[in-house]
């Protein structure tokens, strides 16, 4: 094997701990014993590969999966996927899922008393282009209550899942909307010590992404871990 480099460790405070007491569900699910440090091996610097054909060409548009159009405010969400070395990541699978405009997920566990929308499933997939770009058309998701604490409400958000080039770069995150009054109270959004890191989860209203007479645009750039400068011994 050729020598290879591992992946950079996160900047302090920019990633959550597994145990985050304000997020009640972490109490019984976060590991209690220290994680075991291991070196990067071929197993972690490889990972599943995707190509444009991995997804349906129509899967970027969440507003055209049914006979009619979903209710709510149509929006475009787009941006670039880069690594920490500012390199665009092409052919990265991006999967999203979200609540409908009323704040209800099409999922049997979601019993929130808000209507389902027969014209909205709430999931989409794209593969990034050569410049690392992705773009979805969807509707703005609604806020919804949850059981974490008294009168708890999740700010409007879209779930994002990305693979990147390796097992080491796998990321699941959430995108929020600018100016959401619920953000300061959300224990999931507020899971990092670093305020700037959490604020990067808030998309930016963007004229370039906005389509005249069609949809407001929100830009959300995503950064996956980048390679270290120093090669590992192999």
């Amino acid at each position, binding site marked *: *094997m050729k020598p290879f480099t591992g*992946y950079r460790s*996160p*900047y302090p405070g*920019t*990633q*959550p*701990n*597994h145990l985050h007491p304000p997020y009640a*569900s*972490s109490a*019984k*699910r*976060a*590991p209690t*014993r220290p*994680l*075991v440090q*291991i070196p990067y*091996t*071929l*197993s*972690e*610097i*490889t990972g*599943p*590969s995707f190509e444009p054909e991995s997804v349906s060409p129509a899967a970027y548009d969440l507003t055209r999966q049914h006979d009619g159009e979903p209710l709510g405010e149509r929006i475009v969400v787009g941006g670039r996927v*880069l*690594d*920490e*070395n*500012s390199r665009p990541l092409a052919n990265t699978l991006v*999967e*999203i*899922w979200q609540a409908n405009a009323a704040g209800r*997920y099409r999922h049997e*566990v*979601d019993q929130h008393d808000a209507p389902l929308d027969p014209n909205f499933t*709430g*999931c989409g997939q794209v593969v990034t282009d050569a410049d690392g770009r992705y773009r979805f058309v969807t509707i703005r998701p609604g806020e919804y209550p949850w059981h974490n604490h008294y009168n708890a409400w999740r700010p409007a958000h879209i*779930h994002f*899942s990305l693979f990147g*080039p*390796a*097992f*080491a770069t*796998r*990321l*699941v*995150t*959430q995108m929020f909307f600018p100016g959401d009054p619920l953000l300061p109270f959300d224990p*999931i959004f507020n*899971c990092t010590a670093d305020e700037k*890191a959490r604020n990067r*989860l808030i998309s930016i209203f963007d004229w370039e992404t906005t389509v005249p007479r069609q949809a407001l645009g929100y830009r959300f750039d995503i*950064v*996956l*871990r*980048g390679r270290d400068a120093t090669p590992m*011994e192999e």
Partner: protein
Amino acid sequence: MSLQATTSQTVGPYFKIGLEWLNRSTLAAESVAGERVTIRGRVLDGDGAPVPDALLEIWQANRHGKYAHPEDSQDKPLEAGFTGFGRVPTNNAGCFQFVTIKPGPVPGPNGREQAPHLVISVLMRGLLKRLVTRLYFPNDEPNGSDPILNLVDAERRSTLIANAASGGHLEWNVVLQGTHETVFFDLGL
């Protein structure tokens, strides 16, 4: 210019609607050569209760110990139709099952070979970032010299090694907390 990786967030309770299109519990079709294994287990929380909303993602080499990925420069053959990727949710009883082939050994640090293993991400509501673990195979002689297993306290290594069950399948559980807590690895996430 140097950027900082985006903050991880939980998959939450509703990931099924976004991720199930890519569920893959048969990693190797019948046509893929190799020792076929069925792996079954449960995900258990700190109360020992089954976790009905967990997702496992599996990544592995083929029977020759070759990863279907450009970073693998070994002179070993790829297998047609085998990517090495799996995505398996737990059911309402916290159980999961997948079918694959046992991978071959792959290179490890300092020229030491790694025993056959799967690398596994565990995602669920309650986890703001994924857990990373490994599954090794029972009664496998290379386990004794595996450079990663040897970084784990001897009394905890068994949490990473599947058991041969009487039904012919392998059994391997993900225990999130407690005395038999599964070993999870620090990949700097």
